[in-house]
């Protein structure tokens, strides 16, 4: 064997071994076990739940400005300035500062442009005061943080379910979206319950002592227009009575991120309630507030935007408290778990959910593989019949192509999905096309009376241009598909790109080496079977 050819042959064998390792790894246990350890199956093939969630970051922005509103109101009260949210629904990011005494303008300005606000708000002067609009950068920063905290919280909650290999990550399509994939979990309602529960616990000041029968009457009672710093929230003072409307201060005294821990405990009557502890900083704040309003003030504990408990402040509380909201044991356990794992900084909306039962996954993979194998067998048989000896080249190239494709997937950890199997089948089609192109050209050259050696040389040379063009165009489109597609489209693009790259190698290089090997064995003047 010529030296050049020997190198090529060993190169091919080496590649075969490397990619076989990609598929099987070091064989252990059953063959099937080895493969499934290396090649990740998509949820559509092994069953599971796929969710796309959207974090309502606007809520986090609104509650941040609410907090600043409350703090500024206190800070500016000496200067006789009022702070309000002019339009809480359309512009939750904008505060309006009204200064009654023009001589205080510069004092007020120095407070609102002080260090803690200057980085967050853009301040503009108006005729009798200022408007403070949260800057784009601050908003982006806040929404990034909200999204990250949400992902972290969801991850902790999912972990408590004991799901193996969950995917919880940012989703690239829309804004503030999270992708959650839970292999093997098909109980969607349970998962959604656990994820969606905002476990958003807040303590608000009650504006007027008694509740109103419904929201409309509450609105009338406050004069028809809800003051910008107040809100109406439904719920009952004992958690399980009929819903009533409460008028509360919009800004919370403590909220989700202020909680350090939560446990289920028993109240004096042996009913389950939730005990919580606050962070040191929040505890300090809570102490100041409760101390100042001792005996008179009322606080409402609002859980997931519903009043669960209303209590008169008996004494100053620092960092511990409990919620007795008429919970069942199960409710109390779930809630304290969620409070413990951290509450979500904003509520969550489900955009998409897809659950595949495990048996459907098995059926799908079975059908997909059957179709792929059937397609492969038909094609290979045909190539043998039509091109005889050369058909063997094509068939070997085709098999190697499949080994490389699956090996690629094993190495890169790409996921094999059902459309991915379709991609494999199309790779088979394109792989065969390359060999057909080459063989047809070789036949043409032979017809022109060339020797086998030069017919092969020219056939491969001519066909190469076409194969190159067809492959690059398809790889271009599959690449674009990969960039812009999601889910099934992406899975399809991945296998197609890998398959085509492998094919450029197998159909052109490997098939040629086999011809060269035959020619060398039989001599340059031999004829070939094609």
């Amino acid at each position, binding site marked *: 064997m010529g030296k050049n050819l020997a190198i090529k042959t060993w190169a091919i064998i080496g590649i075969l071994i490397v990619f076989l390792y990609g598929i099987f790894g070091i064989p252990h246990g059953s063959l099937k076990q080895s493969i499934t350890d290396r090649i990740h199956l998509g949820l559509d093939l092994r069953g599971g739940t796929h969710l796309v969630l959207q974090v309502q970051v606007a809520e986090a922005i609104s509650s941040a400005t609410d907090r600043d509103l409350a703090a500024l109101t206190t800070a500016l009260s000496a200067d006789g300035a009022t702070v309000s949210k002019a339009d809480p629904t359309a512009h939750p990011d904008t505060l309006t500062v009204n200064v009654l005494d023009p001589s205080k303008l510069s004092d007020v300005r120095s407070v609102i442009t002080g260090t803690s606000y200057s980085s967050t708000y853009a301040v503009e002067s108006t005729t009798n005061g200022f408007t403070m609009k949260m800057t784009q950068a601050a908003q982006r920063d806040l929404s990034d943080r909200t999204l990250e905290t949400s992902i972290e919280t969801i991850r902790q909650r999912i972990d408590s379910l004991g799901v193996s290999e969950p995917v919880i990550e940012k989703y690239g399509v*829309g804004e503030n979206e999270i992708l959650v994939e839970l292999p093997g979990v098909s109980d969607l309602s349970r998962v959604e319950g656990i994820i969606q529960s905002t476990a958003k616990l807040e303590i608000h000041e009650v504006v007027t002592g008694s509740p109103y029968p419904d929201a409309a009457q509450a609105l009338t009672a406050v004069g028809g227009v809800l003051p910008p710093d107040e809100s109406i929230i439904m719920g009952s003072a004992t958690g399980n009575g009929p819903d009533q409307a409460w008028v509360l201060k919009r800004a919370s005294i403590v909220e989700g991120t202020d909680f350090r821990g939560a446990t289920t405990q028993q109240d004096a009557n042996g009913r389950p309630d939730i005990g919580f502890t606050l962070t040191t900083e929040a505890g300090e704040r809570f102490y100041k507030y409760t101390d100042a309003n001792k005996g008179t003030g009322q606080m409402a504990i609002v859980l997931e935007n519903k009043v669960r408990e209303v209590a008169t402040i008996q004494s100053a509380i620092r960092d511990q408290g409990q919620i007795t909201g008429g919970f069942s044991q199960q409710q109390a356990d779930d809630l304290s778990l969620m409070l413990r794992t951290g509450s979500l900084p904003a509520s969550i909306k489900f955009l998409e959910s897809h659950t595949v039962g495990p048996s459907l996954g098995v059926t799908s993979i079975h059908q997909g593989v059957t179709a792929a194998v*059937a397609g492969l067998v038909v094609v290979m048989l045909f190539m043998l019949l039509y091109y005889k000896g050369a058909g063997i080249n094509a068939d070997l190239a085709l098999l190697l192509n499949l080994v490389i494709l699956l090996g690629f997937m094993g190495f890169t950890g790409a996921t094999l999905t059902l459309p991915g199997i379709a991609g494999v089948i199309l790779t088979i089609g394109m792989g065969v096309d390359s060999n057909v192109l080459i063989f047809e050209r070789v036949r043409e050259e032979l017809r022109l009376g060339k020797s086998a050696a030069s017919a092969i040389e020219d056939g491969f040379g001519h066909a190469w241009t076409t194969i190159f063009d067809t492959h690059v*165009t398809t790889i271009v489109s599959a690449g674009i598909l990969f960039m812009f597609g999601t889910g099934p489209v992406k899975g399809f693009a991945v296998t197609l790109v890998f398959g085509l790259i492998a094919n450029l190698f197998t159909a052109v290089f490997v098939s040629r080496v086999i011809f060269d090997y035959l020619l060398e064995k039989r001599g340059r003047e031999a004829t070939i079977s094609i």
Partner: protein
Amino acid sequence: MEFFRSTNIDWLGKKWYFLGFSLIFSVAGVLSMCFWHGIPKGVDFKGGSQVKVSFTQQPNEDTIRTSMDRSGIKDATIQRLNGDVPNEVLITLPQQNEASLDASRQAVINALGTNFSTGSFKIEDSYTVGPKAGQQLQQQALLATVYSLLGMLIYLWFRFELIYGVAAVVAVFHDTLITIGAFSLTNKEISLTVIAALLTLIGYSMNDTIVVFDRIREDLLENRRETLAETVNRAINQTLSRTVLTSGLTFLTVLCLFLFGGEVLHPFSFALVVGILIGTYSSIAVAAPMLVAYQEWRSRTKGTAATLPTGKAAKPVVR
């Protein structure tokens, strides 16, 4: 074995038949899209819920419908899946508002479970997409298609000449239009996987066209004394064997997918079965005649001989 040997068919002479054929199918599809079934969109794109339920016994559709009605679920479509799984039923609820999305899926399950004796059942597959997410996906799919066409056009422009790229893209557009038309005519829903199939078809049809174009370019370089139409005819005939073989084989693999790929892949493989037939046809009957027609039109307006730019051929493989 050899099927085609030195065929000598006057393809370009039949261009009026081809034009008629293409027109009939495109117009039928477009008419159906405009006035009949529209573009039937799957749950992925229009939003809604889809629950696939398998019962232990063969279910009665009327029973299911009654139990839905009793639970106040009004617009559900109940669809028996054909084939080897007679116990499976697909229940689809159309677009709902974002808030009630999940509730509706659960409502279907509750309705089946509590309301009526539908026998015991299992949820095989459930799919819920909000209308906004659906719109997003739709837009994305459209963008992906447009971008990949643009990508190919630019590549062909760079490798051949602009007119080759334009002719190829028009041919591919023709294929996509007819395939979507076939979906509209048969009222099959277009889902995300179908979009993947359409993109495959675009790539495939493009391949076929490139093979023919490559040969045209090669033959033009031979500088024979023949008209452009004769050269193009010769190129098509020379590649005919390959075209028929490859398309035939790809068609066979896709047919395997269509026959054995199962119900999940059914719309996907349907698109490919139609697409491969039409894609093969279009590279011969649409793309090539367009090249010739354009050059003949140019030669008439400029008074020069009709020929085609040959562009930059790839260098032969270096070994």
